[in-house]
């Protein structure tokens, strides 16, 4: 990114404007969440934020529980930063960017306690459900963090279990058993560019930011996961302001999930 472009983005922000004419805390449009878009998955969602499109799909497996939690099932989140979706992504095993994204999405869901892992147990100590959420961007025009987290939660909410007998899954026989979620944890990422806070960054804005904070919150505003990114330090005041912006926007995004 050249300095001219960076200065231009910073200068516009002083007038409360962005490259595409948005206000600093405005999301791009169209902004939508569609569920059950992929029939081969047990649950799925497509999130569209402006030109950014992300697919999340769920496959379930039956496995032996981990020895330390014999009465609990598990979830797993994988992110594939497909080279199809961004000219800078390359083929190969997940890089650090994909791993961080997957772990932030995973933590938002896991730590929210919305999901009762005990209910994923089939036979204690022997057989439990493992729910695998895979996230694949179709087009990355910025803000994969929020799109990925939203898609993952929407896919979880839409999922139904397939028929299972003696640990063998009949994937083609779907049941109407849903996954119980007590709340919907929603992640919203806030960027700090200059002295200002910005939501839903586009491709050009992401590298300009000095600070980044992803906060995941529940419907009553309780925080369940945080991740600070960006190269520069943030003050406690910055963080509190960013959390407020994140929680307020999360309430709006939550309503989009069908």
């Amino acid at each position, binding site marked *: 990114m050249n300095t001219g472009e960076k200065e231009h983005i910073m200068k516009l922000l002083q007038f409360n404007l962005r490259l595409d004419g948005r206000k600093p805390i405005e999301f791009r449009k169209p902004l939508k969440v569609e569920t059950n*878009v*992929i*029939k*081969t*998955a047990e649950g*799925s969602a497509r999130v569209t934020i402006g*030109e950014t499109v992300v*697919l999340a*799909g*769920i*496959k379930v*497996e039956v496995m032996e529980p981990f020895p330390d939690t014999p009465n609990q099932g598990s979830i797993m989140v*994988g992110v*594939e930063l*497909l*080279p*199809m*979706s*961004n*000219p800078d992504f390359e*083929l190969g*095993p997940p890089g650090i960017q994909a791993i961080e994204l997957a772990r932030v999405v995973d933590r938002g869901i896991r730590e929210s306690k919305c999901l009762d892992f005990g209910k994923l147990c089939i036979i204690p100590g022997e057989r439990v459900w493992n729910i*695998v959420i*895979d996230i*694949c961007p*179709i*087009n*990355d*025009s910025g803000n994969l963090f929020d799109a990925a987290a939203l898609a993952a939660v929407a896919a979880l909410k839409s999922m139904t279990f397939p028929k299972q007998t003696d640990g063998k*899954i009949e*994937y*083609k026989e779907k049941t109407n058993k849903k996954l119980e979620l007590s709340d919907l944890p929603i992640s919203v990422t806030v960027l700090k560019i200059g002295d200002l806070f910005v939501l839903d960054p586009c*491709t050009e804005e992401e590298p300009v930011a000095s600070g980044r904070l992803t906060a995941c919150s529940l419907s009553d505003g309780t925080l369940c996961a945080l991740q600070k990114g960006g190269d520069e330090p943030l003050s406690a005041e910055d963080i509190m302001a960013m959390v407020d912006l994140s929680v307020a926007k999360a309430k709006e995004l939550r309503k989009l999930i069908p």
Partner: protein
Amino acid sequence: MQLKVNKMVYKERLLGRKFDETRQIIAKVGVIPRADGSAYFRIGNTWAYAAVYGPRNLHPKFLQDPSKGILRCNYNMMPFSSSGERVRPGGSRRSKEISLVTVKALSPVLDLNEYPNSVVDVFIELPETEAGSRCAGITAASMALADAGLLMKDLVSAVSVGRVDDKIVVDLDYSEEAYEDGPVADIPVAMMPNHNTITLLQMDGLVSKDMLKEVLEKAKKVCIQLYDIQKNALKEKYKV
């Protein structure tokens, strides 16, 4: 074992489809704004995205060809794209082979002599599959290459034709690939419709020479239909 007196014959396809009829098709180009060219092709429950990047600089350098640009293709099934178990990310022997035959299927229409030391990357991604995914990928990739504005002799259209029992069927679905009451052959074919030449041919199964001849004739008919669909999708993008 009980002897079957009245041998079952394949009489009817699912959803009343005719033997020479494809599943429902949707085709679009320009679906991935970050890419230089892109396309979406859906046939029944199999859908493919293709994105083209390049010509761009090729790294590592030792792969470069100073006389012309090279084409690279990568076919990938998304982890949730199969109706059975999760597909492990990272590519299998199967996906590597399909990537290879996809390069061979698409190369003949491209002229990359103007782009020494460069690469044209084609990424094919399948969010949902139900038979015929390599053909859907090739058909989408050819539209994406055209959308990227590359010099091309022709498009490439691909369809799987086969035999189920004594019938020749086009665009096999999953139930036909897995048909158990008689012999089955699955023959993916890719063609350059204007040149009437075949750029991909594979087969799993058993056929007679006469049947193969009929299969190729049927494939040609379908590829001509696909060509029109591809051409219309490309035109649609520039419609005023």
